């Protein structure tokens, strides 16, 4: 008899939906159907049963083809690469558990690696801004129960966090928000009329790249000062009108995304958005939250934060001290400058998501990729170590976008003999110890 596994955590985006129901086969090996998840989450669970999955590590041969090798062989190769290299980029971590990260960081300390996570090309700018000016934030539960003014600035949850709007921000009825959608005013600021904008009461179309100016104009309007006729393509009357409506709310929240972190201004855009939040607190309760992308990128920031004091791009090449400098220890800059001797990617696909020049630099170095599936990075790596999918075939701790830790669940058994991230990293760690005890690779 197939059985239902309830309250499954979806390991796709930072919303970490916790109400997914997965039907699994009698032998606990195959996922038959997925309920409650969004299109992307369902696809992630369904991918588990697709044929053609790689089940053993592969090593690239001189002729460019890949040959299957044993886990031990791949782990030995990886450990030797790590010990030999004076500076290794250890990038990824956003789609694995916090337990696995912790082991990875131990390895990085021993071999002098640089640990960086996906925030580096995502919410890295936000983290810089938060370090600069702090962040008045809240949990998603508070948004659901209290928020009556919701602003989506440069983010498109309809596409990137598909259930965010129905679970927390637009539609749900909460303790103080009993009218649900009707009791909330939704604003969307974007350069495109996105699907999220279609759900909003007010759409503010900003000229691409003029977010800083518009945020600044909102602050000016909040203080009742004069504005020019248009700011970033938005007429001043609209800015004054929106600011007055925001002041009239009981609890306001700004959700922001890549529209602020990727455009010109980067961290300064976020800086300004946080300052606007602070200013609005003179009139009503106002908070701000980053729409984190990967399901556990927040967790990587947390673990790095409590271990080394920096949320991403931590340089441990001096072993006894952690250093962090954006533009210097960030992955793309390190690759642009050809500054690392080897690359170690885990639970991510920089091949698809880094600018190509960074990946050309990466492809010239010894590279190991640990990922459940074949992707653009595994195919330019020397070694690909497949692992069980965290959140589907093995559990582990993850942090939601509002920094709430949630324990993900194991739903089905991984393929026979497949190791998990934690097991692979532990074995690499042990092998590194052995090699270092012998005095190197």
């Amino acid at each position, binding site marked *: 008899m197939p059985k239902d596994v309830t309250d499954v955590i979806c390991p*796709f985006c930072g919303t970490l939906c916790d109400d997914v129901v997965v039907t699994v086969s009698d032998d606990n090996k195959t996922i038959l159907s997925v309920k409650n998840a*969004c*299109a*992307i989450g369902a*696809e*992630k669970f369904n*991918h588990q049963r*697709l044929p053609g999955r790689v089940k053993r590590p592969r090593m690239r041969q001189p*002729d*460019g083809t890949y040959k299957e090798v044993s886990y031990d062989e791949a782990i030995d190769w990886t450990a030797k690469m790590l010990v030999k290299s004076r500076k290794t980029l250890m990038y990824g971590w956003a789609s694995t558990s916090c337990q696995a990260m912790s082991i990875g960081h131990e390895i990085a300390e021993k071999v002098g690696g640089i640990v960086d996570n996906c925030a*580096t*090309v995502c919410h*890295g*700018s936000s983290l810089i801004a938060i370090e600069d000016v702090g962040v008045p934030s809240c949990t998603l539960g508070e948004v659901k129960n209290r928020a009556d003014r919701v602003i989506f600035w440069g983010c*498109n949850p*309809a*596409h*990137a966090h*598909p259930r965010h709007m129905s679970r927390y921000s637009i539609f749900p009825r909460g303790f103080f928000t009993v009218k649900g959608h009707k009791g909330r005013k939704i604003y969307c600021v974007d350069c*495109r*009329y996105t*699907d999220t904008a279609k759900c909003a009461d007010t759409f503010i179309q900003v000229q*691409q*790249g003029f977010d800083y100016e518009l945020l600044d104009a909102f602050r000016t309007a909040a203080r009742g000062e004069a504005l020019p006729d248009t700011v970033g393509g938005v007429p001043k009357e609209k800015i004054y009108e929106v600011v007055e409506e925001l002041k009239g709310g009981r609890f306001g929240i700004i959700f922001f995304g*890549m*529209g602020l*972190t*990727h*455009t*010109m201004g*980067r*961290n300064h855009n976020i800086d300004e958005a946080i300052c606007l939040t602070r200013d609005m607190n003179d009139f009503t309760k106002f908070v701000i939250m980053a729409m984190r*992308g990967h399901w556990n990128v927040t967790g990587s920031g947390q673990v790095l934060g409590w271990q080394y004091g920096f949320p991403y*791009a931590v340089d441990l090449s001096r072993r006894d001290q952690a250093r962090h400098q*954006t*533009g210097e220890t*960030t*992955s*793309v*800059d390190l*690759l*642009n400058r050809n500054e690392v001797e080897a690359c170690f990617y885990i639970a991510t*696909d920089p*091949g*698809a*998501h*880094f*600018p*190509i*020049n*960074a*990946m*050309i630099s990466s*492809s010239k170095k010894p590279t190991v990729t640990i990922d459940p*599936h*074949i*992707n*653009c990075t595994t*195919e*330019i790596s020397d070694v690909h170590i497949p692992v069980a999918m965290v959140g589907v075939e093995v559990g582990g701790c993850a942090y939601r976008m509002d920094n709430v830790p949630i324990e993900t669940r194991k739903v089905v058994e991984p393929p026979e003999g497949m190791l998990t991230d934690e097991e692979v990293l532990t074995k690499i760690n042990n092998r590194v110890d052995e090699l270092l005890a012998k005095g190197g690779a």
Partner: protein
Amino acid sequence: MANKITLNLITCRTIQQGVGMEAGKTSKKYFDACTIIHMHPEDFKKLGAWKNTNVKVTSSVGSVIVKAVETREDLVPGLAHIPMGPWANRIVPAYTFSTGEPCFKGFPVDVEVATNERIMGAIEVVQDACGLIRK
């Protein structure tokens, strides 16, 4: 006579890209979702191209062949959008202004019609740039 037009390009997620990514980087879903450039109808007129024509998009760092489609989420004329992925990243400038973040949104590109050019596969487009394809 087809022209060359200059547009401001942004790259970002679409739900189709997310579904394709989870279906597998080598899947057809991923290919279909990411090998497109969303353009405004006015820009199609300026370019002198039909919808669903292959175009060559060139930035300061390189060029890539994708299919031009009419936007579903409205763009203003002059603004174009390629979903994130290895094709978009063939033309994303890697320079980060010392912030760690490359310029994924808001960089100028030239678009020209390339009807007979082939769109590369997800892995091919990365391997090709890295010089890993043996001919």
